[in-house]
């Protein structure tokens, strides 16, 4: 069997970094990293359950844009909109990149020799390559065509909202965002939309002491779209990182999150709610999460819920690593799936690795059908079966959805869930 880089039909073929300025060096380094590790293979431990072939093929499997015929999400939120169409920045559809307490620049336009992002771009991604290789993230750092460099210096007046529209059937988008929050700064970042037929996205977030970062994402509903996304975050002391992702549809989604708690008394919550229906082609959703505690008295939560029907597949690979000296760690991890019929598959690999002796860590993983007793209870009160089932689905999702602190954003997400339920 040849080394992966010897193959001629994958995304490594003929890759070369063309960037100039400060980004040339980190991109070049990332390309070398990628070439030495190779593209993901089924034999890699963390790719056993998700086929990487369509993510690493030279050609993009076509995906039609899907008109959900519903009001766009976050429509009622006062926000700064930044729009990408098939991964290409759209100045027309975007607001001016100006907001109090934050500096926003496009990666494609940041060509100076010296830049604040130099110390971050590809840096958190590279840290996240140990101990688990994440080649698609290195590919992204090397080859991203655009993205945003967001430097938050204070409390932003409103959320920054990234909208990823998908138009072309064969678009192949690679975006890389860097967010740096200074001490005490606050930002809410919203993301929504399918982005492209195939989307590779990296989000690097540096959260300084006492800063807080909130992230709510709704991945696009196009049935045939593919996405491989990574979040790399590093947290200073007394800081907060909260991220929630809703995924509805998508033939293949792999969401990785790598979070490092490096300052004392910080908290990191990451949650995901996925709803998939295999009847629309296929649905395969993979959450792969790695949280490292490397400071004292930090709290982390991983809350992942999946609702599957008609042959849908859900994957969860989650780890809590508590390093030596990370005393008084409070770590929690739960991954659950609700199977609405019998053909679905849910595979979970919860892992704890603990080298400190004074910690509280718990993890749980369950899979099951709708609770018949609860269903009977609701129906006995006159609630019809379909409506009762929907209520129980929302009930199942609640622990993940409740991770969203903002009422308006949470309601928006819940309305997407009920929308999916209404359409089925």
């Amino acid at each position, binding site marked *: 069997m040849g080394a992966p880089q010897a193959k001629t039909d994958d995304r490594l073929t003929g890759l070369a970094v063309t960037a100039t300025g400060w980004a040339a060096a980190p991109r070049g380094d990332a390309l070398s990293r990628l070439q030495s590790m190779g593209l993901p293979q089924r034999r890699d431990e963390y790719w056993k359950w998700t086929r990487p072939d369509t993510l690493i093929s030279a050609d993009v499997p076509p995906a039609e844009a899907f008109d959900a015929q519903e009001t766009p999400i976050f429509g009622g939120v006062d926000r700064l909109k930044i729009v990408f169409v098939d991964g290409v920045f759209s100045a027309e559809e975007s607001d001016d990149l100006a907001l109090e307490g934050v500096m926003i620049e496009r990666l494609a336009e940041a060509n100076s020799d010296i830049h604040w992002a130099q110390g971050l771009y590809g840096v958190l991604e590279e840290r996240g390559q140990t101990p688990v290789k994440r080649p698609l993230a290195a590919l992204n750092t090397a080859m991203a065509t655009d993205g945003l460099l967001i430097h938050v210096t204070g409390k932003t007046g409103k959320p920054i909202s990234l909208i990823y529209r998908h138009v072309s059937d064969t678009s192949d988008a690679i975006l890389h965002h860097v967010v740096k929050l200074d001490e005490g700064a606050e930002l809410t970042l919203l993301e929504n939309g399918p982005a492209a037929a195939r989307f590779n996205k990296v989000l690097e977030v540096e959260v300084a002491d006492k800063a807080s970062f909130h992230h709510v994402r709704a991945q696009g509903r196009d049935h045939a779209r593919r996405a491989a996304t990574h979040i790399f975050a590093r947290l200073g002391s007394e800081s907060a990182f909260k991220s929630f992702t809703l995924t509805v549809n998508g033939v293949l989604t792999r969401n990785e999150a790598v979070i490092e708690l490096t300052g004392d008394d910080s908290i990191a919550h990451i949650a995901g709610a996925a709803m998939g229906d295999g009847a629309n082609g296929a649905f395969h959703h993979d959450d792969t999460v790695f949280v490292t505690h490397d400071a004292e008295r930090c709290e982390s939560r991983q809350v992942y819920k999946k609702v599957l029907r008609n042959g849908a597949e859900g994957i969860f690979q989650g780890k809590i690593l508590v390093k030596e000296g990370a005393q008084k760690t409070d770590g929690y991890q739960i991954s659950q799936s609700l199977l609405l019929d019998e053909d679905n598959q849910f595979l979970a690999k919860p892992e704890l690795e603990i080298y400190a002796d004074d910690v509280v860590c718990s993890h749980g993983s369950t899979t099951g059908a709708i609770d018949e007793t609860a269903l009977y209870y609701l129906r*006995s009160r006159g*609630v019809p079966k379909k*409506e009762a089932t929907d209520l129980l689905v929302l*009930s*199942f999702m*609640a622990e993940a*959805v409740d991770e969203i602190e903002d009422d308006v954003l949470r309601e928006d997400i819940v309305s997407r869930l009920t929308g999916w339920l209404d359409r089925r």
Partner: protein
Amino acid sequence: MLEIKNLHVELEEEGKKILKGVDLTVEDGKVHAIMGPNGSGKSTLSYVLSGRQGYEVTDGTAELDGADLLDMDPEERAAAGLFLAFQYPVEIPGVGNMTFLRTAVNAQRKARGEEEISAADFLKLVREKAKNLKIDADMLKRPVNVGFSGGEKKRNEILQMAMLEPKMCILDETDSGLDVDAMRLVADGVNALRDAGRGFLVITHYQRLLDHIKPDVVHIMADGRIIKTGGPELALEVEKNGYADILEGA
């Protein structure tokens, strides 16, 4: 009026016979109590009437005001006016009690071809009824039965009953797990709902609930049949002498 005739029921999977010919009629405006030893089939009767899965009716009929209950889905039975207060009310995380109540009220109205109740009217109604049952605003907001004490769960059942205004109420061991004060509160809630157009079937092990909810008729159930029927004095007899004498006499 609830009319049960010659009802035979088996457990679907095991084929075990639980009810072996129950005959029972509860007229509008009356309170009937069913007492009986463990395993006599009391709770099964309540489940079968409300449409729980897992039971097979092998013979007999059950009608509410002439409508065949056994041919209906659970939600249709509810819309027809049947209500079961559960012995073990079910916890539903993530669904607010208020949302649940409103969904139920409106679903039943819809099924009966009535208009949905407005949010304001609903709120007013639920607050008034909750107050009588000493259910505070916090309990209304919390997820259905989650973290409720035993007494709170039973009061919440009675609140649902008060909101849904059923024609026929079945109370399945509503007194189990209740202290004296909680039992009085629940009984007051039930008594407030007594009216000429509404029938009650109160299932209990003990006479003490019947001190608070005074029955018109008391039935003793054993081995899947009603073996004796009488007035309130029958409950006192059970309390004093246990079931043994009655079982022997039957």
